[in-house]
């Protein structure tokens, strides 16, 4: 079984030594993210996130199916995160590692369970038809910070996505193609984003957005998911080194700050993309609702 190439003893000592002197190897501040890039695909609902050397693509697709029998009034939404061997030699197809389980579990809790997407609005006819939304997360390149990058990618893709409009007549539902009817954005109730903190020296030093080498040296991670309204959606600290409760509160405060920044970043990117799609002011031309 392939496994992650471990950092050498020397390198480990070097990173730890540097941290003791308040220096990160790439020169970042402790509370700084790596440069974040976000691009959207030509299709609606494709977001490509680059966080330093880590690269994640999320893609939203939609289908019409029958709702689950115990959830007649809800649409279906699932997030599928897959580690492909392309990203790192440590990844193997078909055998989920712990990291993979944790990633999909965190995304599940951060986005799905916190009701970021209003699944009730995906219901077409209760008990008969609903939209099934699927978010595929592809890890293209792995240099640490997968959870943060994946969460940004999924949230950006969800906000970017447009679902086809549907006309219901009695028990008959007709899905209208994109050409026939302008597709509709999803109803997003809030935008949860993850910030992962890495702890060193028994919680003495805490970093944001560790890269792969830093991740391997850390004692423990704390994943905080928040939205820009100051709500904590999810916190996960799976054991490891113990930390003062105050340090954890600090993490939450810091995460709230970072999440606001990233939210704003996604928003401006979405606006840029909308402007790009609306070349020549076509949308204004097509609007049916006009000032009198």
């Amino acid at each position: 079984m392939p496994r992650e190439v471990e950092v050498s003893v020397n390198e480990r000592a070097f990173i730890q030594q540097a941290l003791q002197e308040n220096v990160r190897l790439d020169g970042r501040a402790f509370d700084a993210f790596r440069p974040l890039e976000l691009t959207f695909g030509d299709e609606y609902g494709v977001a490509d996130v680059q966080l330093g050397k880590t690269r994640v693509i999320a893609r939203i697709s939609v289908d019409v199916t029958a709702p689950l029998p115990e959830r007649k009034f809800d649409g279906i939404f699932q997030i599928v995160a897959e580690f492909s061997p392309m990203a790192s030699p440590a990844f193997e197809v078909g055998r989920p590692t712990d990291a993979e389980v944790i990633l999909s579990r965190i995304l599940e809790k951060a986005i799905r369970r916190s009701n970021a997407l209003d699944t009730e609005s995906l219901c077409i006819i209760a008990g008969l038809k609903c939209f099934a939304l699927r978010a595929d997360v592809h890890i293209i390149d792995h240099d640490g910070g997968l959870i943060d990058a994946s969460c940004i990618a999924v949230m950006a893709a969800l906000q970017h996505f447009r679902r086809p409009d549907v006309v219901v007549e009695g028990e008959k539902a007709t899905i209208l193609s994109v050409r026939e009817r302008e597709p509709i954005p999803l109803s997003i109730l809030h935008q949860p984003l993850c910030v992962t903190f890495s702890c060193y020296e028994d919680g003495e030093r805490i970093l944001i957005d560790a890269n792969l080498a830093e991740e391997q040296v850390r004692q423990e991670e704390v994943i905080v998911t928040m939205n820009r309204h100051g709500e904590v959606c999810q916190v996960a600290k799976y054991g490891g080194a113990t930390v003062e409760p105050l340090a954890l509160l600090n993490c939450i405060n810091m995460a709230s700050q970072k999440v606001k920044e990233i939210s704003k970043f996604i928003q401006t990117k979405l606006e840029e993309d909308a402007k790009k799609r609306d070349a020549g002011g076509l949308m204004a031309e097509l609007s049916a609702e006009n000032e009198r």
Partner: protein
Amino acid sequence: MPLDTSIYPLALLRLDGRRWNELRRIHAQVSVQAAADGSSYLEMGNTRVICVVLGPAEGKDKGQRGAREGEAKVGVEIAVAGFSGMERRRRVGNKRTSEMQHCLSTAFSSLLFTHLYPHSTISISIHILSQDGSLLAACLNAATLALIDAGIPMSDYLTACTVASSASSSSSDTATSDPLLDLNGLEEQELPFLTIGAVGEKVSVLMLETRVRMERVEGMLAVGVEGCKRVRAILDGVVRTYEKKFG
């Protein structure tokens, strides 16, 4: 419609008649399984778990996957009995149990003196017999007892409990919200809560899975750490009575 958690502000009483800072009845025993190296049985209210520890023993697979060089590997397996919930189910939340397994494994890996047992495996198996809230906390507590019973050295007790933020009369008002200690299943469904596992004053495990205002987390953490201390005293009592009898 039965009453729900919104009645708390009326008389500062919870659905089962407890105050905000009261634990449920905790009953525990150690060495319940003679064949095992260490074992425990724990009840927190109507949540019941049984835990068995085997090892440290020579690991099954040579590579010791998942563990670092020169340290013992902590393997965790959690089985949920089909009759443990309200409805009888065949398989319960696969991902959720594997997340709990991961959590227990990482928590105890750094708590136990694993460097004393290189190339070996300590395996913890937990059976959930009955569920009524605070499941992860019960698993952590039971595992701590069983590991002590097995005589594996560790720095301190790892004890856990849950804390919720009570419903306040107006949802935006943070001042009137009390943290509630040790939730039962009904409260868990209705209130935002977190599970906290502490070693002494420091936090080892923290899991929050429901949306809650960030201002409320502070109070929840403080009550949680306090709650863990009280759980520790109870578990310590269990261990010491056992010692007196058979030590």
